[in-house]
C-alpha cells in the first residue's frame, strides 16, 4: 500500500496532522499502537462510577486557527474556559488565604500567552517554507525567536521583576512549575512561563476532544489503523520510505511523521547501526525531566469549596526555596517531602465525571523522579507517596480525606509505559534554553525536519500548544512534497 504520508501515533498532534494533510488532498494513514485514539487525551473510569483524565486535566490551548480549520466544534469538542486559579497557604494558621488572579498575575499570563502565540505563528509560517538551499558555510543563523530573551532569566528573577508581592510570586511560581521538575533559580527557567496555562476543560472529559479530532481526521479522508505498533521506519539511503508494522505489513509512504518524542523516535524506530553517529549523539544528549505524578481521588462528598473557586486549578503555594529543595531531591532520585502540589476538583467543571452528589479530585505532583535512587517504584513506595499526598491534601482542604472512596496513583514510569513517552516527560524534553526554539530537535534542520529525509517530528513541544506541533509537521510535509 502506498501513501503520501504515514503518521505514527494517534494523539492530538497525530490526528491534527492527519486532518490537515487529508484536507489538502493527500492520502494519509495514522498508525496507533493502542486500541483507541487520543494519547494523553483520554478519560477513563478509575473507580466504579468515577472518571478522570489520568495524565492531564487540561491540555494547552488549541490555536484558534487550527480549531477552526479542523472544525472541531462541529465534531463535538466543547471547551469550558478555566476562569480561576487559586492559591492556598495551608501553613497560615488562622486563615486559608484564597487568592485568585490579581491584576499583575493576569497581566503576566497575558504576556506569556502573547509570546507563545507569536512563537506558534512563526513556527507555522516557517514550516510552510521549503528548506533553503544551503551554500557552503553552513546554515544561516536563525533570527531570534519571540520570547528568546527569557532564556537568560531565571523564573525567580523574572517573577520578582514583573510581580510585586510575595503571594502573587508564589502563586505564579506554583502555576508555572505545576507537575514539572525544574529549578526556579536556574538561568532559563523563565521559559516555563511559555508553556502557558490550559486551554480550558472539555465537556465530557478529554476523551471527547480525542473523538472530535478522530472524526475530523476521518472526515478529511485519513485512514486510521489501531492496535498495531510500528516496528521500524524503512530507510533507503538516508531517506525514510515507509514503515514496518509489528505484524510484518509494509507501508510505503513518501513522508513519515512521528509524533513520538525525539529519543523514542530514533532509538525505538531505527536500528542503531542505521543512524548516523552525529544523530545518535544529538539524540542521546537530549535531556528529559519528568516529574509528574498524579493521584486521582473518588470522593463521596464534594469538598467545602466555594463554587467560583472550585473550577480551576488550586495550587498549594510554596516559596522559591521549597521548589528548589524539591528539585534537589528530584535530581538525586528522592521523592521530596513536600512535592509541589496542584489540586483540581474536575467534577466541578464537568459534573458528568462523577455520580450525582459525589466528586472527583485530582492531585498533580511535581518533582517526582522517574528513577528512584534505591531502585524501582515498588508498591510500598507508591503507598507511601499516596499517604503523604493525602496528608498534604488534608492540610490544605481539611476533611477531604475522610470522604475518599477510591484512588489511583500514577507515577512517571506509568506514564512512560502507558503513553510510550520517554521517562514519562509530557513536555517531550526538559524545558531549558538549549532545548527550546531552534534547538528543539535538530538545530541544522529547522522546525520539524530531521537529518533523515522524509522523516518529520510532530511530537509535543511546549509553547506550541495542543495540535500545533502536528500541524507544523504537516505543513512541512506539504511544502516538501510539492
Amino acid at each position: 500500500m502506498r501513501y503520501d504520508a504515514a503518521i505514527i501515533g494517534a494523539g492530538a498532534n497525530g490526528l491534527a496532522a492527519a486532518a490537515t494533510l487529508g484536507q489538502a488532498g493527500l492520502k494519509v494513514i495514522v498508525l496507533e499502537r493502542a486500541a483507541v485514539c487520543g494519547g494523553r487525551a483520554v478519560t477513563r473510569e478509575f473507580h466504579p462510577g468515577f472518571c478522570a483524565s489520568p495524565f492531564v486535566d487540561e491540555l494547552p490551548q488549541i490555536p484558534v486557527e487550527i480549531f477552526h480549520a479542523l472544525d472541531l466544534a462541529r465534531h463535538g469538542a466543547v471547551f469550558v474556559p478555566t476562569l480561576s486559579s487559586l492559591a492556598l497557604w495551608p501553613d497560615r494558621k488562622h486563615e486559608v488565604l484564597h487568592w485568585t488572579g490579581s491584576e499583575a498575575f493576569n497581566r503576566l499570563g497575558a504576556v506569556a500567552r502573547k509570546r507563545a502565540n507569536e512563537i506558534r505563528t512563526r513556527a507555522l509560517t516557517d514550516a510552510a517554507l521549503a528548506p533553503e538551499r544551503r551554500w557552503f558555510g553552513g546554515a544561516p543563523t536563525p533570527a531570534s525567536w519571540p520570547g528568546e530573551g527569557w532564556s537568560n532569566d531565571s523564573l525567580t528573577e523574572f517573577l520578582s521583576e514583573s510581580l510585586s508581592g510575595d503571594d502573587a510570586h508564589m502563586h505564579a511560581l506554583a502555576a508555572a512549575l505545576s507537575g514539572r521538575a525544574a529549578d526556579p533559580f536556574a538561568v532559563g527557567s523563565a521559559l516555563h512561563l511559555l508553556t502557558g496555562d490550559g486551554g480550558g476543560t472539555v465537556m465530557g472529559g478529554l476523551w471527547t476532544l480525542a473523538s472530535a479530532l478522530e472524526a475530523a481526521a476521518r472526515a478529511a479522508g485519513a485512514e486510521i489503523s489501531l492496535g498495531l505498533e510500528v516496528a521500524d521506519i524503512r530507510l533507503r539511503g538516508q531517506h525514510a520510505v515507509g514503515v514496518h508494522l509489528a505484524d510484518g505489513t509494509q507501508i510505503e509512504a513518501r513522508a513519515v511523521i512521528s509524533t513520538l518524542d525525539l529519543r523514542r523516535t530514533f532509538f525505538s524506530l531505527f536500528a542503531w547501526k542505521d543512524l548516523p553517529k552525529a544523530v545518535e549523539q544529538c539524540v542521546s544528549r537530549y535531556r528529559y525531566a519528568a516529574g509528574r505524578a498524579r493521584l486521582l481521588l473518588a470522593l463521596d462528598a464534594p469538598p467545602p469549596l466555594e463554587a467560583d473557586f472550585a473550577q480551576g486549578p488550586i495550587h498549594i503555594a510554596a516559596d522559591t526555596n521549597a521548589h528548589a529543595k524539591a528539585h534537589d531531591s528530584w535530581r538525586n532520585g528522592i521523592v521530596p517531602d513536600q512535592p509541589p502540589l496542584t489540586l483540581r476538583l474536575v467534577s466541578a467543571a464537568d459534573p458528568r465525571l462523577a455520580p450525582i452528589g459525589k466528586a472527583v479530585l485530582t492531585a498533580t505532583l511535581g518533582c517526582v523522579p522517574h528513577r528512584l535512587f534505591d531502585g524501582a517504584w515498588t508498591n510500598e513506595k507508591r503507598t507511601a507517596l499516596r499517604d503523604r499526598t493525602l496528608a498534604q491534601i488534608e492540610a490544605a482542604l481539611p476533611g477531604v480525606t475522610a470522604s475518599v472512596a477510591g484512588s489511583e496513583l500514577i507515577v512517571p514510569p506509568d506514564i512512560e509505559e502507558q503513553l510510550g513517552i520517554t521517562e514519562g516527560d509530557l513536555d517531550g524534553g526538559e524545558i531549558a534554553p538549549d532545548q527550546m526554539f531552534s534547538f528543539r530537535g535538530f538545530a541544522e534542520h529547522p522546525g520539524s525536519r530531521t537529518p533523515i529525509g522524509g522523516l518529520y517530528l510532530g511530537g509535543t513541544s511546549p509553547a506550541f500548544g495542543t495540535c500545533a506541533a502536528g500541524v507544523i509537521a504537516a505543513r512541512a510535509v506539504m511544502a516538501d512534497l510539492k
Partner: protein
Amino acid sequence: MSARSDAIVIGGGLNGLVAATYLAKAGRKVLLLEAEEILGGSCRASAALPGVRASLGAHALTALDPRLVKDLGLRGLKFAARDLPTVALRPDGHHLVLGRDAHASARAIAAQSPADAETYRRMRSEIFALGRAMRPLWWDGLSDAFSDPLFSRLKVASATAFLSNLESEPLKAAIAFDAGMPMQSGSALALVWRAAQEMCGLQGAMAMPFGGVAALADMLIIAAQAAGIEIRTKARVAKILADSAVAGVSLDTGEEIYSRAVLSSLSRRETLLDLSPTAAAGFSETARLERAAPLTGDAAILFLLNAAPDFGAPNGRFLIAERLDAYAAAESIAREGRLPDELLIEAVVATAADPSLAPTGLHVLSVRVHGLPLAPEGGSAEIIKRVIAALERHTPHLRERIIGLDIRLPYEQDVFSGERLAAAYAERVETPVEGLFLCGTGAEPMNAISGRAGRLAAGIAQAWLAREKRA
C-alpha cells in the same frame, strides 16, 4: 585638590595598571587610585606569609593577553612551567592525566572508558577549533566577526549537557571545572572560552611565570611608572561623582578629585551600586543588579609546607572533583550558606615549578576551592579544616607539614552568564553613566587574570575622550 586629569583609574590591580598604562601611552593624564598600601591587587604576593612570593589571586596564568606582553614590553616575563597538565585525582590512585599529548590523554582515558577516549579527542578538537574561531570576539572585542549556529547553541547550553556524550564521571567532572557552574545555561561556552586562550603559544594551557603571578604585577608597575602615571596608594574611593555624566571621585577622606573619565576595575555591581550615586545607572539596571546578587564564590588558600606534598602523580594542576553531580549539589548547598559535603578543589604545588617562590627548603601548595557560600557557616577555620581533610585523602601527612597558611574567603564577583560571555567587550566596559567605564573584573567575560579588559577598556575610554573633546 590636584589638577584635573583626563582619567581616573580606580584600583591598582592588574587590569587597573594595564588600563592606566595604555591611556598614558596614548598621551592622557592618568591618576591611579589604590585603596591598599601596595599595588598589584589580587596578583600581589601573600602578605601573611613572609618570604613567599605566591599570590592568593591566582596560582598560575591561563589567559594572559599576548598583546599585552608585546605592547607593554613585558619581555622579562619568563615561564617556569609552560603547560601544566590537568591531573584529576582519584582515591584509588588511578589518576587521570590530561595533557597536551592527545594520544597520551586518550590512552589514560581509555583505561577507564574506551568509548570516551575517542569522544574526548573529537570533543577537544571541536572545542579548540571553535575557540580559535572565537578569538576576534574575545581578544579584540569584535562582536560581528563570528556567527555560527553552534555558537548560538553553546551560548545557552550547559556544560553538563555538552559533556553528556562522555560516560566517565571523573573525566566529565575534570573538564567541567573550567566551566565554573557547569549546570548553568551558557557554561558550555565557558569551556570554549578557556580553549580560546593561549599561554606561551599553547592553546588552553596553564603556565607559571618565574616569580609567580606577583612577578607579572611587578613588571606592570614598572611599565606604569615608566609611562608617567600618577599613582596614589592608600586612597580609597568612597563615591563616584556623577549626575548625568561622570565628574570625578571622592575619597573616604572627603577629598574630591575631578576628571573627565573614570575607569573602575571593580565589579559591575560594586561600581554601579556601591560607588555610584543612587540609581545613577537607571532604575531598571539598578534593580537588575540588585537582584543579580551572587551567592557563591571561590576561596583561595596558600599552605606553606616544610616538606613537599606527594600526590602520587606528575606535577600538574590537581583537581579533586569526582562526580559531575557534585557541582550541582555544591551549588544548592552553598545557596543555603553551608559548606558542601564534597569540596571541589584545584591545587598546584607552586614551588615544584619554581622553588624561588618560597624560602629554601619550604614548599607552597596553592589551593582554590570552587563554589563556596559567600558567608559560610564556621568561617575560614571550618573551610581550612575541611580542605585539609579533603587533600589528605590524596596526599597523606599534609597536616603535619603545614607551617603557615593564608586564606582569601569567597568574595562577590559579577555572576556568570552565557549572555555576558557572548557579548562584545564594549557592552561590558560601558556603563549607563556617561564617562564611567569598567576596566577590570566587571568587564572580563570570565574571572581570570588576562589584562585584556584593561587594554580594551583603555581603547574605548580613549575613543570616548577624543570624541568628547571634539564635541
